């Protein structure tokens, strides 16, 4: 099948099975988990899931050309695949890269078919930007390991079947060297998932508690005490996922949404409001152009390196900046939260969380300074000290 034929096949299937994309609705279209599972299964059955993945594990064994063709076509449809984005974006490619034959055989196809939903469990309350300081532990027992501790900021844990969980297996080694990644059955009775309510009042994440959760020896992804390099690989996939994800829902702090509200209030005659909107448009437009530059460079084989951090930083600071500007424009109305301004205030409150997720602004600035500009690295006092001698947050 030529790429064009593949594209036509994808288009035909999507036209039959998916709704056209609508900027004004969430891309998931509010689908239930069951609906999402059915959609994913349909995708796989149509040969449209795991396009570039090996056939032996349930993939289609096709090339990048087909993947790009699919992405192009799919951008115009509402894809209720939210529950699978993490699993297929991060744990699955990591399993393909580091997993045992048995692990790949066991998990990849069920993930592609929508039968298994996966989460990624790295972050801990005391860790923050310093993921490698994680304290959740796995203690060796006769027939495997016992996991105890807490993870946080876990998306989708409430409906996930498995998690890729990063834990400390040897606290006497320096912090990066005593970490292991496990496959954990999240239905284990020792696992408690609790929704995490954030500043907006929503609960988009979970806290996950592990209380003597037993995992067998063959649940290790990669090698024992070599989990950090597996985690680094997974975070690399995370960046790709974030960077090339499905078109986001129209941003209430973006130009399009703001200009509509401004017009509805007749504020577009005010010169300073118009100038503010111009500034918002300019920055947003430049972010789009920069993203296009990076994509074109990647396609042309120019390494992107750490420059994605500049896109992340710009994307994180944009809503924080617009948050101030909208107060000048909408004034009192923002304090009262009517149907019009609720999306705005929700986005304002969510912006600091968005800036923190995936690495704080400070971390991004360090990455840009060190890896793009080549400035010397932060002193890094903790690299070679045994973990159990390190100072940690309480």
């Amino acid at each position: 099948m030529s790429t064009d034929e593949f594209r036509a096949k994808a288009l035909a299937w999507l036209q039959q099975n998916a709704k056209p994309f609508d900027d004004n609705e969430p891309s998931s279209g509010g689908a239930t988990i069951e609906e999402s599972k059915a959609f994913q299964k349909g995708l796989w059955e149509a040969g449209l899931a795991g396009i570039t993945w090996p056939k032996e594990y349930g993939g289609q064994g096709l090339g990048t050309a087909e993947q790009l063709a699919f992405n192009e076509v799919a951008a115009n449809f509402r894809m209720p695949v939210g529950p699978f984005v993490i699993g297929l974006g991060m744990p699955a490619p990591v399993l393909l890269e580091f997993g045992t034959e048995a692990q790949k055989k066991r998990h990849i196809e069920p993930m592609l078919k929508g039968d298994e939903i996966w989460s990624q469990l790295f972050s801990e309350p005391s860790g923050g930007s310093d993921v490698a300081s994680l304290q959740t532990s796995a203690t060796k027992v006769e027939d495997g390991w016992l996991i105890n501790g807490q993870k946080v900021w876990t998306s989708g844990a409430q409906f996930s079947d498995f998690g890729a969980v990063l834990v400390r297996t040897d606290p006497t080694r320096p912090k990066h060297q005593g970490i292991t990644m496990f496959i954990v059955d999240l239905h284990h009775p020792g696992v408690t998932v609790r929704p995490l309510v954030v500043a907006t009042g929503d609960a988009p994440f979970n806290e996950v508690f592990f209380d003597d959760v037993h995992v067998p020896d063959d649940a290790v992804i990669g090698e024992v005490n070599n989990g950090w390099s597996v985690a680094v690989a997974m975070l690399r996939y995370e960046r790709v996922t974030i960077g090339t994800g499905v078109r986001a829902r129209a941003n209430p702090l973006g130009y399009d949404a703001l200009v509509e509200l401004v017009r509805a209030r007749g504020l577009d005659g005010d010169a300073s409001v118009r100038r503010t909107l111009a500034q918002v448009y300019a920055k947003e437009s430049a972010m789009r152009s920069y993203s296009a530059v990076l994509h074109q460079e990647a396609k042309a084989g120019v390494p992107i390196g750490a420059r994605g951090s500049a896109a992340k930083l710009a994307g994180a600071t944009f809503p924080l900046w617009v948050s101030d500007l909208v107060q000048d424009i909408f004034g009192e109305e923002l304090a009262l939260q009517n149907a019009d301004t609720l999306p705005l205030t929700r986005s304002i409150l969510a912006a600091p969380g968005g800036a923190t997720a995936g690495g704080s602004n400070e971390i991004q600035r360090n990455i840009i300074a060190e890896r793009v500009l080549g400035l010397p690295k932060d002193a890094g006092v903790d690299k070679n000290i045994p973990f159990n001698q390190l100072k940690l947050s309480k």
Partner: protein
Amino acid sequence: MTLIDTADQRDLASSVKRFVSGQAPMSAVRETIKSDAAYDPQVWRRLAQELGLAGLAIPEQYGGAGASWSDLVVALRELGAGLVPSPLLATSVLATGTLLALDDEEARAAWLPRFAEGTAVGALAVSEGTGREWALADSAVTVSDGAVTGTKTAVLNADDADVLLVTTSAGIVLVERDAPGLTITPVDALDLTRGIATVTFDGTPGRVLAGDAAAALESVIDLANLALAAEQAAATKACLDMTTEYAKIRYSFGQPIGIYQGVKHPLANIYTDWALTDAAVRKASESLAEGSETASLDAAVARHLASSGYIEAAKQTMLLHGGIGFTWEHDAHLYYRNAITGNVLLGGPTAQQDRIAATLGV
């Protein structure tokens, strides 16, 4: 002009601070937030009566303590730092300030003593939407044969008020709580620590108060600016202190995050802006208390700096706390919500700048 607290003011500040940490700590504030009430009536009773804050700036002849506005500002600072919900701003600043600035002895005699003893809550209904926060001559609320008709927005503590002072095109009108045709609708406020409502009047009986309404409103704007600025500056400092303490105990990469200049420098900037703002609030407080001719200017300057500085401090508080600062359980968002609300209520950022320019005669 004395810009540092007097011994009496320092004592007052300590009493209120002690009260806040003992009787209205953040855990209690969260209880109030969970409840339907805009504030805890017990806390208000004690603030009003035991600490005497409700009547602090009310003249003795009306049962108050006859202290100066700058004393009340000292109390507002401490309550603002703790985000303590109370109708103090609505009653003892806005409503009291309006009655004192007008010239209606009957209204003063009827209400100020009750305000002073904390047995009545007053509200000032001025706004008619963004850009019309201090509507008066151009108000769309009208009075005809003693009946008030129209709508006011963003009225602080309206739902708790026993009496409303309403700016109308006919002047400032007094409306009592049980008047027919009065509808008070609490709104879903961004700020969880302030009670805010929309108030509609439909032929509601009201009495136009004697006195120069425009001049009175001018002085109430100054009071509102000063009071909000005082609360905001203190809340800014609370955010700074909270974040500074966190930066000392939170470790990242083997060191407390406060050792990194990426954390130090934003905190130093917030400190610097706060220090200037705090000084501006002190200046405005003294100007108002002394009746200085720069009082309006100084109050608007204080409010402008305090509003914008608090927004930045609260935002950085969320950011520098990382993930934890984004959780509902952390207080950072309560401050951020309060900061945004204080920035846009009773005259937003551009309104303050316009007022500064106008008072400067630019």
